[in-house]
């Protein structure tokens, strides 16, 4: 079935199709439509789930954590300040290896106060041990939320997932969305059957105290799970593609990178704008390409080396700033390219903070800047 949906509605549809059992959420702009729509689905009898109307985001994730250790499939959604408020719970969820799926409707952080989109909120949480997937369209938001449960609940991953989508640009903008049928989703996503859950027959402790002798081994297991997640994200995307006919490139999605001298690296919805610019510049004879990072964690370092290794210049478009250095993605792309015999020049561009529009002209200017760097001038 096809319908006009925005990304918030698309995520709520995914929650229904995933047969989520417990939802705990607190409203915040621009996430609100997700939690309203889920409440509506439950009220209309379309979704059989417990809905915990919590008094804060910290409690939203704590309640999801409690429900998850009871063995339920859980969901929450937030934005910006709400994500920041959850911060310590993020580590509890990932450290306890509970497969929470959370939609992060990206929004800038105060101060100055803003409700508009950038990636500062989720990028600031990249080291919390959560998988982070950034989507480009409402369709991808729906599809990625479904994929997220398969990834998070994979026995060798057991790591929570953030599905990150740009506030307003995606969350409040309708597009044609193909809505999968329930039977198809059921065949893709079986019920959650955790190996460990709260059971008085088998008393266990979740999140025990841990001394310096053992703590590092648990943190290492999280890192190994993230490494495992690389192949699981790709395999799940492939399987999804085989079933539904839509694929998103797994960890990273190149666009017209063949023979490209200058490649732009993006996250999220601005990618769609950049595709148009690449098409136009290609038409004009410029060897330009585009690489969208779908996963920020685990970071697609191998893909970056393979796809960008042949470029002369790489421009990284960051909708965040790691204050005191540069855009966070720029640093990471440089790190991924480090050690290559022939390293492209990497240029960082910070654009689109706090909802500042990124136009085709802006992206074209970035490409012109990148193309003006010839190898001889390095």
């Amino acid at each position: 079935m096809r319908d006009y949906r925005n990304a918030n509605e698309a995520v709520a549809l995914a929650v229904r199709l995933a047969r989520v059992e417990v939802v705990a959420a607190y409203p915040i702009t621009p996430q609100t439509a997700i939690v309203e729509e889920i409440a509506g689905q439950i009220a209309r009898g379309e979704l059989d789930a417990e809905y915990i109307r919590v008094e804060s985001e910290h409690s939203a994730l704590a309640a999801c954590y409690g429900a998850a250790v009871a063995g339920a499939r859980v969901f929450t959604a937030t934005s910006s300040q709400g994500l920041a408020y959850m911060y310590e719970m993020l580590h509890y969820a990932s450290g306890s290896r509970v497969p929470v799926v959370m939609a992060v409707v990206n929004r800038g952080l105060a101060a100055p106060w803003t409700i508009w989109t950038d990636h500062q909120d989720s990028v600031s949480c990249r080291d919390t041990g959560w998988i982070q997937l950034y989507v480009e369209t409402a369709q991808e938001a729906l599809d990625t939320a479904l994929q997220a449960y398969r990834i998070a609940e994979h026995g060798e991953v057991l790591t929570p997932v953030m599905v990150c989508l740009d506030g307003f640009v995606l969350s409040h903008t309708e597009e044609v969305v193909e809505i999968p049928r329930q039977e198809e989703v059921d065949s893709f996503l079986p019920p959650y059957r955790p190996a460990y859950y709260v059971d008085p027959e088998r008393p266990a402790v979740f999140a025990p105290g841990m001394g310096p002798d053992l703590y590092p081994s648990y943190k290492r297991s999280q890192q190994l799970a993230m490494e495992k997640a690389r192949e699981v994200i790709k395999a799940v995307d492939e399987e999804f593609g085989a079933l539904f006919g839509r694929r998103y490139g797994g960890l990273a999605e190149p666009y017209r990178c063949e023979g490209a001298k200058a490649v732009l690296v993006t996250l999220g919805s601005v990618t769609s704008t950049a595709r148009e610019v690449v098409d136009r510049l290609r038409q004009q004879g410029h060897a330009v390409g585009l690489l969208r990072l779908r996963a920020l964690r685990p970071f697609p370092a191998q893909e970056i080396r393979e796809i960008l290794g042949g470029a002369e210049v790489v421009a990284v478009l960051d909708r965040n700033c790691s204050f005191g250095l540069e855009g966070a993605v720029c640093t990471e792309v440089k790190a991924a390219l480090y050690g290559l015999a022939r390293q492209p020049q990497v240029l960082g561009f910070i654009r689109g903070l706090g909802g500042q529009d990124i136009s085709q002209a802006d992206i074209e200017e970035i490409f012109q800047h990148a193309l003006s760097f010839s190898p001889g001038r390095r």
Partner: protein
Amino acid sequence: MRIEELREEEFVCGSFACAGCGAILAVRLALKVLGPETVVVTTPSCLLGVTTFYPQLAFKVPCVNVPFPATAAAVSGLVAGLRRKGRENVRVLGIAGDGGTVDIGLQALSGALERGDRFIFLCYDNEAYMNTGGQRSGSTPLGASTATTPVGRGAKGEDRPKKDMLRIVAAHNIPYAASASIGYPADYIRKLEKAVKAGGPAYIQVLTPCPPGWGYRSDLTVHLARLAVQAGQWALAEYEEGAWRVKEVSNPRPVREYWALQKRFAHLLQESGGEG
């Protein structure tokens, strides 16, 4: 249930609690009343530190540890998750100290109480942040010397009265709220039984003296837990179906008798020349 009728089975054993720890006694009795079909939700606190430091599990029931402000929120999640999984027979017992209840845990607790979930919240009140070395909390009584309300020139210990948490909880109009003392175990057990049968949120705040935190000999824990009631420093109160009941003290004792046994109040007696 009379004390002799309590089950023999222990659900807390092998803890690293201090000699004379009032909190571990409160938890031990609570689990004897609640029984094996229980899950404990608790936070970084004395209780976590002495019961669930890997590979130790001093509970014979499952235990879920959560961040300091989150006890009651995680309780809500467990109640919903267990219900969704058809295991609502498992009782959810949130346990936090006074700091984790009346200070940093207050917002989440208020939310959970207001939502009306069926759970029991046990606040073991030792009247300061004992796990971090005895700093004052909102539950510290007026005049008590703590690590952050020390006595000195111009400083006479805690300068604010103890937060009246029981009335705050009762204002949520929950089915059952009570204060208890481990010095009155029969009363405490009766209240735990009522909490189990409450059919909605139930709250018990139990006084649990702390030998290192209060500065007294470890064999005096139960004695002080009784004396606090007799000296009018702790009320045995109950809020049920909108009505209050407070146990009358039949053998009142002077407050100085209670103060005199504890280092945290020593300055009050010196100040009043022993006549307090």
